[in-house]
């Protein structure tokens, strides 16, 4: 007997639909085919929809690769990546790649996706005009932003265009969206929610022009501007066209397959040639085209059933839902949200919370929904639409969500296996969370957090924990804490507590706790440091700092290390030092036997491994050489990084070093809600990385660009441009005003980046830029506070303050 020869399957198009089809085939008939994949892009397969978060800087390309080369190897699949197929010879059953690689097939699957539509206005071929379809496009956009190109225009205000625009904005470009229609995303949003979306996007700094008809793209060697039909001209270093997609049918057409707008397939996903199947965005099924992934998954299943000859299933189109992947904007849309004369609308508005919901009903069934501002019940509404559920029993409560309607609800997490990790920070699995919920009858996120630590660190998985709670306990889950309390000791939120402190003239921590009905006698490690800061900020000079309510580092004025020793970072003004300082540091290291010396990421020197009883002596010696505490340990002003600037650098336009030193001299010693970092660069090359600092200044020929709200860390955030000023005095004035606004209004442990995300850069501009009077007052309050704050804590302690901190009480043998 001869072993049956495996049939040859070739896939053209290494994208989401094609590879999913292979997976489905492998699942059903693992050994039936020898497979070859041609892909035009030079990699394995990645999750195309995640290009938006990659562009926005929230994910890296590595994070979105779904099938690396090893996946193909493990499954014995030949991958020919980077070589598009250029010819299908249907008679000979052979496809040929661009480099001439031939592959014979018994079954061919075409999954070539679609091509972005490029409107043929004059100038559309200029360099700098691109689409948003693949990783190469994302790279072009990021490179443009990094290369200092500052103006971007996105043509198209649909899902893709807005995600592109948001990403460009996050990359620091001035971004304008041009949309032909009167409202954004008109295919997914009703006019009310579209208007809310527009103002939300504008608040983030995006410029949106609706009813904008692009007339021409102008430029000589590359794009320079965009001209609208009304004659206005917008400067543009980059133009992204996101006006739609067109099925990629050229290859199929040439091979003589029946094509209409897309490659025509039957209910079994076969083309007009029974040996050739097609899936994904390149197909047309019963007149319909596709642009979202959900239907592709269904197509892949049907194709696999048919190709492997395991079942004669048919593809049945289902409704898809859409969400806009812009962090912080919560929306969902599905089904027919316009309705007709037989349908009725239920509309819910909560303008204060920015929430709008529109539900469309016909014959007691939900046929469409738009949720804006609060889409947490999207999954439930979507199920109701898909299952054509009769909603008459809870119709009056429908708009308030499943909890109100008394119906248990599920979300994406319900499909995860119990072993799936929900909280990455603390390594807590879904199973552990559910077990804790059942065993201890937990009903709130706080309880789950306390039991399992899930969502206790960075908090980004909180919504999943909430979903698991809803899943496990249904309507018993109480999702309604209106304001998040500061901690378990109180029901008051941060903002309320701050208001009461000044409103009721509360002067000490016990006063606050008593007046506001704290449930614990002396608070906890979370509320006490917050209260201490709020009081310090409210009553400068008068409030007596409570060392017992300070985290160890701020009490010891050094950073505790894992072995219980400390690190000491002296201030190095603007990153500038001298031979005398360096010599003194060297002497201190030798004299006290300090084990490790390191240059920090903040342009200064760290002495690591100092024992607590050595600290006062080390400080005394550093003080003697003129050095003071660098507050590397504090929720306080930390470093001010600088570059060499006009003093030395051939590109420097202003003296960034002196500017940085002046800023540090003004702001050092200030306690802030979270740590605060600054940087000053001498020209837009920005070597001091001022655009990822809490406050940054970048010199230009004519003055300074002032930036705020950036940080590094896990979630890097690029600053927002606050304003441009001309003089160094103005830089100082704006910096002081910004610091004070942040000190007075942000919540404890909220860095400037999340604070600005919460209150919006427009608000900050309104307080600091638009209103010179308010700026002056903030500046003056900051300087007044500094009169009391600028005392070197090291000098005090070297002189004996809090000496008990550093010495043992007794020795017993």
């Amino acid at each position, binding site marked *: 007997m001869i072993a049956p020869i495996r049939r040859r399957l070739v896939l053209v198009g290494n994208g989401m639909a094609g590879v999913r089809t292979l997976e489905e085939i492998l699942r059903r008939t693992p050994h039936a085919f020898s497979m070859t994949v041609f892909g035009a892009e030079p990699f394995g397969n990645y999750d195309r929809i995640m290009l938006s978060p990659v562009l926005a800087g929230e994910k890296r390309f590595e994070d979105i690769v779904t099938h690396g080369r090893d996946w193909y190897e493990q499954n014995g699949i030949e991958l020919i990546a980077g070589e598009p197929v250029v010819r299908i010879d249907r008679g000979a059953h052979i496809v040929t790649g661009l480099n001439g690689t031939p592959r014979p097939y018994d079954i061919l699957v075409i999954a070539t996706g679609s091509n972005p539509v490029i409107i043929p206005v004059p100038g559309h071929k200029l360099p700098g005009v691109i689409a948003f379809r693949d990783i190469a496009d994302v790279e072009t956009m990021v490179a443009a932003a990094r290369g200092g190109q500052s103006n971007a225009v996105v043509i198209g205000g649909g899902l893709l265009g807005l995600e592109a625009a948001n990403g460009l904005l996050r990359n620091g470009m001035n971004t304008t969206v041009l949309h032909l229609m009167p409202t954004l995303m008109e295919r997914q949003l009703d006019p009310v929610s579209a208007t809310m979306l527009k103002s939300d996007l504008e608040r983030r700094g995006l410029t949106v022009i609706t009813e904008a008809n692009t007339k021409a793209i102008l430029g000589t060697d590359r794009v320079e501007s965009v001209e609208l039909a009304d004659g206005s001209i917008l400067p543009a270093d980059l133009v992204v066209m996101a006006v739609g997609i067109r099925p990629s049918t050229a290859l199929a057409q040439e091979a003589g397959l029946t094509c209409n707008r897309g490659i025509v397939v039957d209910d079994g996903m076969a083309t007009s040639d029974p040996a050739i199947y097609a899936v994904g965005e390149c197909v047309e099924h019963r007149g319909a085209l596709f642009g979202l992934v959900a239907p592709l998954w269904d197509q892949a299943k049907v194709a696999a059933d048919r190709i492997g000859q395991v079942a004669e299933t048919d593809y049945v189109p289902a409704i898809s839902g859409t969400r806009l992947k812009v962090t912080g904007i919560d929306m969902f849309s599905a089904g027919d949200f316009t309705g007709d004369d037989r349908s009725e609308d239920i509309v819910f508005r909560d303008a204060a919370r920015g929430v709008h919901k529109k539900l469309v009903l016909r014959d007691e069934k939900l046929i469409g929904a738009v949720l804006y501002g609060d889409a947490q019940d999207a999954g439930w509404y979507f199920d109701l639409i898909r299952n054509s559920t009769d909603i008459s029993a809870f119709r009056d409560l429908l708009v308030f969500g499943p909890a109100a309607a008394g119906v248990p609800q599920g979300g994406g997490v319900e499909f995860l296996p119990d072993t799936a990790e929900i909280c990455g920070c603390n390594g807590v699995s879904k199973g552990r969370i559910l077990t804790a919920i059942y065993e201890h009858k937990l009903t709130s996120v706080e309880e789950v957090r306390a039991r399992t630590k899930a969502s206790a660190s960075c908090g980004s998985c909180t919504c999943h924990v909430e979903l698991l709670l809803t899943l496990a306990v249904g309507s018993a889950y109480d999702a309604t804490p209106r304001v998040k309390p500061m901690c378990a000791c109180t029901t008051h939120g941060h903002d309320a507590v701050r208001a009461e402190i000044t409103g009721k003239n509360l002067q000490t921590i016990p006063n606050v706790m008593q007046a506001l009905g704290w449930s614990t*006698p002396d608070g*906890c*490690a979370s509320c006490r440091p917050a209260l201490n800061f709020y009081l310090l900020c409210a009553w400068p000079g008068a409030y007596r700092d409570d060392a017992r309510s300070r985290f*160890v580092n701020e009490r010891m004025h050094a950073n505790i290390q894992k072995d*219980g020793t400390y690190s000491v970072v002296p201030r190095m003004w603007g990153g500038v030092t001298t031979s005398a300082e360096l010599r003194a540091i060297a002497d201190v290291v030798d004299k006290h036997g300090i084990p490790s010396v390191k240059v920090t990421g903040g342009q200064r020197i760290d002495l690591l491994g100092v024992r607590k009883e050595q600290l006062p002596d080390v400080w005394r010696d550093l003080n003697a050489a003129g050095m003071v505490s660098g507050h590397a340990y504090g929720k306080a002003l930390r470093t001010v990084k600088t570059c060499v600037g006009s003093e030395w650098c051939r590109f420097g336009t202003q003296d960034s070093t002196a500017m940085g030193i002046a800023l540090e001299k003004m702001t050092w010693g200030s306690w802030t809600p979270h740590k605060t970092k600054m940087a000053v660069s001498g020209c837009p090359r920005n070597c001091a990385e001022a655009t990822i600092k809490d406050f940054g200044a970048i010199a230009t020929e004519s003055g300074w660009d002032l930036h705020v709200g950036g940080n590094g860390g896990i979630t890097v955030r690029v600053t927002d441009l606050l304003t441009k000023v001309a003089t160094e005095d103005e830089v100082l004035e704006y910096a002081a005003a910004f610091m004070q606004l942040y000190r007075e209004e942000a919540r404890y442990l909220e860095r400037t980046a999340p604070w600005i995300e919460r209150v919006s850069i427009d608000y900050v501009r309104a307080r600091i830029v638009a209103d010179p009077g308010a700026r002056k007052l903030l500046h003056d309050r900051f300087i007044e506070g500094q009169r009391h704050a600028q005392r070197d804590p090291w000098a005090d302690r070297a002189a004996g303050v809090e000496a*008990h901190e550093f010495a043992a009480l*007794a*020795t*017993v043998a």
Partner: protein
Amino acid sequence: MDTATATLWKHIGTIDDIPRLGSRTVTTDGDDIAVFRLADDRVFALYDRCPHKAGKLSQGIVHGESVTCPLHNWVIGLTDGQAQSPDEGCARTVPARLDGRSIFLEVS
């Protein structure tokens, strides 16, 4: 018997040496001992070693009858040394007694 036990109690200082809601350490030939003073002037002692990763409990924030470890925020009960759920572990306690304003520890 009485005299035998009495010799185990070591005088280590007075309550005025420790700030309210604060802690001081006592050096031994092994691990340090952390002595805590609560808001109501009760005094407790633990070996200065968090059951998690040996953080120095003496450097934590004291609240109620607990201390929060400075390294990773475990909350350790001062009366029994137990870590608060969901964390599990126990710091070794040292019997402490207040006589007038003097603090005695029972060390072996």
